[in-house]
């Protein structure tokens, strides 16, 4: 470390005019003077005692505020569980997921099956299916377009067997099921679709 020139000390202490210094020393004095000015401008913060007292005197947060604060503050939670309980819990969750105990729909007999009717009728106000399974009575099996995409569906339980059917669109237009593989002449100049209902229990 180089010793400081005594004339610089004198200039910083105000005992000598900085302007009277040689140019080389004056260049060294100027940054030192700025540093001294910065140190003189610093206002020290409150002391530790002051900060503690300020905290004590501050109004206590409301109960709701404390609860919110508790909610948003990270906490460590530790469980001490025997592995056998963890396995049992996982087994219960698996059983409830794979075999839900809620509504299963109707009980289906040995000689009954499920028929699903699906048709695409964009813009239709109503769609139903009529056939030899419901005496061709319109409205007894209404299809639904739950997500309003123009695809109408109904799922019904029927006795096993073969049935002729048609869709009725907007209560007046008879339309065969274009997705059905089986069609048969209806003796009225058109074609009926044919569905074969197989036993649901096999």
């Amino acid at each position, binding site marked *: 470390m180089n010793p400081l020139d005594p004339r610089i000390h004198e200039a910083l202490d105000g005992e000598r005019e900085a302007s009277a210094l040689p140019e080389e020393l004056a260049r060294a004095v100027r940054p030192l003077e700025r540093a001294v000015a910065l140190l003189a401008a610093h206002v020290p913060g409150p002391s530790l005692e002051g900060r503690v007292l300020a905290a004590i005197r501050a109004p206590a947060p409301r109960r709701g505020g404390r609860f919110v604060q508790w909610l948003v503050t990270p906490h460590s939670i530790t469980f001490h569980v025997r592995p056998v309980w963890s396995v049992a819990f996982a087994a219960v969750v698996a059983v409830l997921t794979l075999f839900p105990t809620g509504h299963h*729909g109707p009980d289906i007999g040995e000689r009954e099956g*499920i028929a699903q009717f699906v048709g695409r009728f964009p813009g239709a106000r109503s769609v139903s299916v009529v056939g030899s399974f419901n*005496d*061709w009575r319109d409205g007894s099996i209404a299809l639904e377009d739950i997500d309003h995409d123009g695809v109408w569906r109904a799922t019904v*339980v029927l006795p096993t067997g073969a049935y002729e059917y048609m869709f009725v669109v907007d209560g007046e237009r008879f339309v065969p099921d274009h997705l059905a*593989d*089986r069609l048969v002449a*209806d003796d*009225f100049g058109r074609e009926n679709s044919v569905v074969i209902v*197989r036993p649901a229990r096999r």
Partner: protein
Amino acid sequence: MRWWLGLALLAQPVVAQSVRPRLEGRIPNDAVPGVDSIVAVASGEGLPTEPLIQKALEGGAKHVTAPRITAAVQASLEQLRGARALLERAGDTLPVKTAEVTTVAWALRRGLPQPVVERVVAALKPPRAAALHAVADLAAHRFNVDSSADLIIAAIHDGLQRERLLDVSAAAAHELQRGHTHAEALARVRAELPNVPGPPRPTANAVGRARRVATPPPP
């Protein structure tokens, strides 16, 4: 006295077969007497009546005129008579079952030639509905009808029966979709018999959504 009692017992089934209550309000009034009498004739001949009632109700639902409804029901009666005659020719045990008559009438309406239906009937004991529908399904996919009947009869000989025969026709249709010719598809399925995949089971979701509807009595 006994003579009157016998006459009353004979007349009772005819009276009980009146289907006017099911027809009135569902078909034009002008068609009710004609359809009712055709149904009575069918009942008297031991033929199934439900297909005739369904044909009339279908015509009523489709707003068909009374003469056309009566004509269609009469045509259905002729089909049932033809179906019973076929069953008798094929050597079915007398009296033939009404369900079998309905089944054969179905097969003929679906376009199967009479000789083919007779072959299937002769090869299989009742119930034959699935077998005949399986042959008709194959014919609908433009398979040769005789070859289709051969395949289904082979499946019967290999132990498949009832609804499983529908899986045979479905398997042949799948082979077509995979790009095979009709002859190749039939040969591939026949080579795999009796191992054809079954239909997908209804999903739990579908079962949960299913509704039960009031259904008419079986034919």
